[in-house]
């Protein structure tokens, strides 16, 4: 996806982005955060533990960029276990 490459370059991201394009939204749907009405993924965060289970998740209101505080709190909780 050229737009992802451009976005990564502009924001200097150091991790790969998933297009989730074909079949469209398959991964987003698997996580239950696909918005059928507008045809795109909602903004959601997931922390997955080493067993591959979702340890924490957060669905952000539309158009609100979620900060990283919830992720860090969830990781701290995980490391206590």
């Amino acid at each position, binding site marked *: 996806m050229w737009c992802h490459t451009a976005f990564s370059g502009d*924001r*200097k991201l150091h991790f790969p982005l998933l297009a989730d394009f074909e079949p469209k939204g398959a991964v987003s749907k698997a996580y239950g955060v696909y918005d059928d009405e507008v045809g795109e993924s909602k903004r959601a965060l997931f922390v997955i533990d080493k067993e591959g289970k979702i340890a924490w998740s957060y669905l952000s209101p539309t158009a609100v*960029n*979620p*900060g*990283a*505080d*919830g992720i860090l709190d969830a990781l701290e909780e995980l490391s206590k276990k």
Partner: protein
Amino acid sequence: MSTLKPAVSEKDHTHGGQSASIEIVEFGDYQCPHCGNAYPIVKEIEETFGDQIKFIFRNFPLQEAHPLAFPAALAAEAAGVQGKFWEMHDAIYENQYRLSEDIFTELAETIGLDLDKFKEDSESDKIQQKVEDDFESGIRSGVNGTPSFYVNGTKFDGGVMDLYEMLKESAE
């Protein structure tokens, strides 16, 4: 709901009424154009509400996007050692349109700092640590862009104009 972590302490730079009932924390980046645009409005808020508001600035330099944001934050903190944090903070935003690596010494001279001490403090580990601690505080507090504002410890979902409106309404 994201909250401010850690709470405001004596390590922070504060402005306005020290015992005000409204405490506003801004996480800002000196090279961020949105912060530059917010700067005069923040000033207006401070002028309008005076001692009713205690205003705090924490550094949130987005180093990848803004290479001069971190050096600028160091300059402001180094000025703070000589009791002129806010003078440098204001001078940087007022000259944001012409930021460069060399500008900080010029601004330090303009606001009347001891230049040798300023240079020494700008390069010190302590000052670097302060900026990094501020940045980490922002991450832990859920900063999702700059500027981000916290009112009495809770993240304010909106820009500086929304903040101004909210304050005006609550003052009525």
